[in-house]
């Protein structure tokens, strides 16, 4: 059994502007993160704890290219976002920032505050009652990106290798 994670349950079509509000975009990620989702769930940013997960409805992350939408969740310690579908641009940004996304068609059965586990490599989400929900497989190179902490650490390694004798 993998680590247990507390669920924050959100609806469909959570957009990037809700995750990283435009009015705070001139600031660094610490400030943006404090306002993450304030228009939808004002209790989220103050209440979320490292290791918590978001379970949302379809089309999570629609909208802007602003990667602060994913970075804010990372900053707050969110371990994964689980949803039936994600916006493509947000999907790329999340993995580039080291935020794990699990595409899980059955996840909407999961409730607010539930304690769940997940295994990204095996592609499954396990509910408190032992019910197992399949998640879509993630290409190996993206799992490696998550394990490295995102694209930036991977690029660092690449350039260190290039410049070392």
């Amino acid at each position: 059994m993998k680590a247990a994670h507390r669920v924050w349950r959100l609806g469909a079509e959570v957009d990037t502007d809700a995750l990283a509000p435009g009015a705070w975009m001139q600031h660094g990620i610490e400030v943006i993160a404090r306002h993450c989702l304030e228009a939808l769930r004002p209790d989220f940013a103050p209440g979320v704890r490292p290791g918590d997960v978001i379970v949302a409805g379809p089309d999570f992350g629609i909208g802007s290219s602003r990667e602060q939408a994913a970075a804010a969740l990372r900053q707050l310690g969110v371990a994964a976002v689980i949803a039936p579908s994600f916006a493509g641009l947000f999907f790329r940004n999340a993995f580039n920032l080291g935020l794990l996304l699990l595409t899980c068609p059955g996840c909407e059965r999961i409730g607010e505050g539930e304690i769940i586990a997940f295994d990204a490599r095996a592609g499954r989400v396990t509910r408190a009652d032992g019910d197992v929900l399949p998640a879509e497989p993630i290409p190996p190179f993206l799992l490696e990106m998550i394990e490295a902490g995102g694209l930036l650490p991977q690029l660092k390694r690449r350039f260190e290798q290039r410049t070392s004798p």
Partner: protein
Amino acid sequence: MAMSLAAKLIARACGRERVTPGEIVTCRVDLAMFHDSSGPRRLQPMLEQLGARIWDRNKVVLVMDHYVPERSEDARRIVRIARDWAREQQLPHVYDSIGICHVVVPQHGHIRPGMFCVGGDSHSPTGGAFGSYMFGVGSTEMLGVVTTGEIWVQVPRTIRMRWRGRLSRGVTAKDMMLAMIGRFGMNGGAWQAVEFTGEAVRALPMHERMTLSNMSAELGAQVGLIEPDEVTRDWLAAHGAPGVEIAPWHSDPDSADEEHGFDAATLMPQVAAPFSPANAAPVNQHVGTVIQAAYIGACTGAKLEDLRFAAQVLRGRHVAPGVRLLVAPASHADRDAAIVEGTLQVLQDAGAQLLPSACGVCAGYGDSLAADETVISSTARNFKGRMGPPSTRVYLASAYTVAASALAGRIADPREVLA
């Protein structure tokens, strides 16, 4: 096997004869565009951490459009970073405070048929109107591009939107897009390639085609492609890119994975209610909704063509008492052309207030609409809290419908004014 335009563009960029939907390939990037918000302020510190250089500065275009004109200390700081960095890196292609990137970059001939491009902004699919594979990326992914010149893509399926017939007067590309987004939803494109085709699309001028490709973002597509033709070639020739090749860049027959048909002739003007572009419906369902402001702006809805649409409605008339009509032309080139031909004077005589050619309230990065207001806007997104406080209610429509609504002080059908 038949290949779509999307597959042909990717095959060229990854150096292969052919590619198949679902394959993951690495492409060489022909052009990387970013702006003051997504670009230097994010890239510079990461480049320093890496000790890396820009792979090819001739392939980089920087546009200052989000935080200009600078109205706060933060905006001044962000734009100063961009200007200092552009100088330090000796970037050859910098467009500072002359308009919005998705309009300014094609206006300078940077995006041509056959190219593979990325942009640090979600409306980057606008480049698809020129037969270029162009999509949006975040800043960290842009860092990967500017240091390596490469990016991975999964070859998309092609969803073809075929529009037969001709649009009637007062109906535009914006209405076509709202209708498609209303039907398929904001993620209906599923990060695949959408291709716009058919008689109605071929009949559109370049600016209108750009509106289709631009709002592919709201359809959730990675790219929104239009096969280049003589219209594309002539427009590019007039914008610094003469003699482009268009022949190779078309889809083979039967190459679409999905096709949807639409009738342009029966399309009504569309209005998307708060708080999603997918809340689109024919204008008659919203006629009578009282508005306090009307906004014609953004890369989506304030190109020269849009300003002309508004002028057709506003000529010799005046906006309703108590309604603010704000016009922020998409670029100085659009604004200046509108001045020369008299279009801008028509708007100003009708009571329009001219705003700077920048992202402005559409991005919501500083300027904002007022709380509790109901606004009709030619922009692309009406998310809660995007263009103003969460209590600001934004309806999306074409420049025709925005102008007609400004006259009436409530949402109105532009065809009644034009009749």
